[in-house]
């Protein structure tokens, strides 16, 4: 099964569970099939997990874990990625924004302009989005958006390594854990909470082959939680940033 087909099937599985998953479906005349997973509809955990499964194209696993902050046991998203670079390039590098709407996700095998599985954080569910294919949309105060947010630190790390000159084929596997921000209807507060979990609560491990100097440089400037780069040849681990559970507690609780 190729990754486009896998992601397409994930979209179909979301659609098949409407209305049980608290989502709704719209189809417009441009050929866009859209699921409202958190704009006007609440969505829920099942669609939120499937957003990340669709974006990871079947090249990994999405689990829900937990973290204890003060007396609160809060959910985390744990990602285990078998092809972190491919996932980044297919789903997170991003194509040019459509009317300022950033859409993540793999394209279609047959049509480069369409999405086999697209995801966008947007405040409007409208038939006017000039995109084709399949799109899951969620507002920034939604659970789906908060869960999606947990994937950004590991993808940021992959991007940083690629920019530092590490060949993609040398970045082999990834694991990350990031808390799901506590939800609020206030958009501004939600934006801050989502940023807080990325900067203070994410833990990322990447296993790779690269020069020590490059790894030291990447970790030295790391700003999103704790980054651990495990160099496979020398068997050394390079660490940047930190987990700030106290600071995270203040931001989330």
């Amino acid at each position, binding site marked *: 099964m190729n990754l486009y087909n896998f992601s397409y099937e994930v979209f179909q599985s979301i659609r098949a569970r409407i209305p049980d998953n608290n989502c709704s479906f719209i189809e417009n005349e441009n050929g866009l099939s859209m699921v409202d997973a958190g704009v006007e509809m609440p969505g829920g955990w099942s669609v939120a997990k499937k957003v990340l499964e669709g974006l990871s194209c079947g090249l990994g696993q999405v689990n829900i874990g937990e973290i204890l902050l003060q007396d609160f046991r809060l959910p985390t998203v744990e990602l285990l990625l078998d*092809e972190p670079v491919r996932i980044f390039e297919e789903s997170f590098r991003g194509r040019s924004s459509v009317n300022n709407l950033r859409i993540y996700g793999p394209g279609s095998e047959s049509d480069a302009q369409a999405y086999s599985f697209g995801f966008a954080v947007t405040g409007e569910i409208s038939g006017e989005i000039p995109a084709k294919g399949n799109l899951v949309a969620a507002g920034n105060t939604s659970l789906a958006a908060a869960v999606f947010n947990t994937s950004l630190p590991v993808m940021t790390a992959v991007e940083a390594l690629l920019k530092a000159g590490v060949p993609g084929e040398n970045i082999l596997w990834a694991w990350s854990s990031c808390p799901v921000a506590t939800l609020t209807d206030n958009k501004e507060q939600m934006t801050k909470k989502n940023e807080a979990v990325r900067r203070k609560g994410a833990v990322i491990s990447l296993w790779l082959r690269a020069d020590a100097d490059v790894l030291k440089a990447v970790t030295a400037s790391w700003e999103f939680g704790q980054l651990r780069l495990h160099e*496979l040849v020398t*068997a050394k681990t390079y660490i940047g940033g930190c987990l700030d559970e106290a600071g995270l507690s203040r931001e989330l609780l």
Partner: protein
Amino acid sequence: MTFSLNNNAARLIEDYVRPNKERLNIDIFELDNGTTILDMGVFAKGGWLAAKAFVDIGLGGLGELCYRKMKAGSYYVPALSVLVDRPGIAEMASHVARFRVPYKGRNIDISGPIRSIKGVDEFARAVEYRDVEAKSAVGCIQTTVIPTAEACGLIAEAAGVTPEQLYLVVARTGNIVGAVQVGARNIEQTLPTLFDHGFDMEDIIQASGVTPMISIVDDELVAYGRVNDSLIYGQETNVYLRCDDEKILGVLDELTFVKNRDIYGTPFQEIFARCDNDWTQVPREWDAPCKINFHNLSSGRSFSTGKLGHQTLENSFLG
């Protein structure tokens, strides 16, 4: 009993692994003698999905690996959580790597459902179960080489099957699949220890285990050392059994790795080097689980022995 560990494993291979081999980053091919090789990490890249499949195959359909999270020292790491039904059968007759086939002056150590066909080793014979309905034989090998047709022929003969019936799942230790599948041997390490101390495997009703995954590295010896660190300093197994409390209390101090006071805290790579990197020279008491929690269904009481060696785990994690 009417279930077949080997048929379960073969079904997992044919229904899930083979159709998804590209997604799993593995290679599947047949040798000239008809044996099917699943390369999950000798030359293949493998990954988290392949590693889970390796473990699930080794449990013969009686258990599964789930990825969780735990702390090793001060660091959050992936954790390898294993849940098994029929723990005596799943582990002693299948998962335990005890089936030894001599080949060119060394032993090939094989784990997996294949062991349950004839009860080929003393641990497999610790339970009554034999896979009398097996249509194929599935074995797992921790190895840096693809087994030759000749070696596979010897394995098949020893197991009582034809080479064409044989599936072998292989991966290096110095690979993610190797790191995961060895680290997932938490219950697998514990039950033989209990067997050695006189526990009847049929009295063990349920079991679960968790191991911190602290390291993946290329070098086979370093990988070997670190994955064993994760077991002797990090794995914790829950055993639910029926027996007299006194039987448990009588052996608590003898079971876990902390009993080896003269070497406790030493990384396994160093310990292994003292044994010329030869498992046959490693004293049995050095292959000991880190921590065991007993829950006695008969008395309702629980007992625990052993402790996690967080400093050694952290040192291995950091490298």
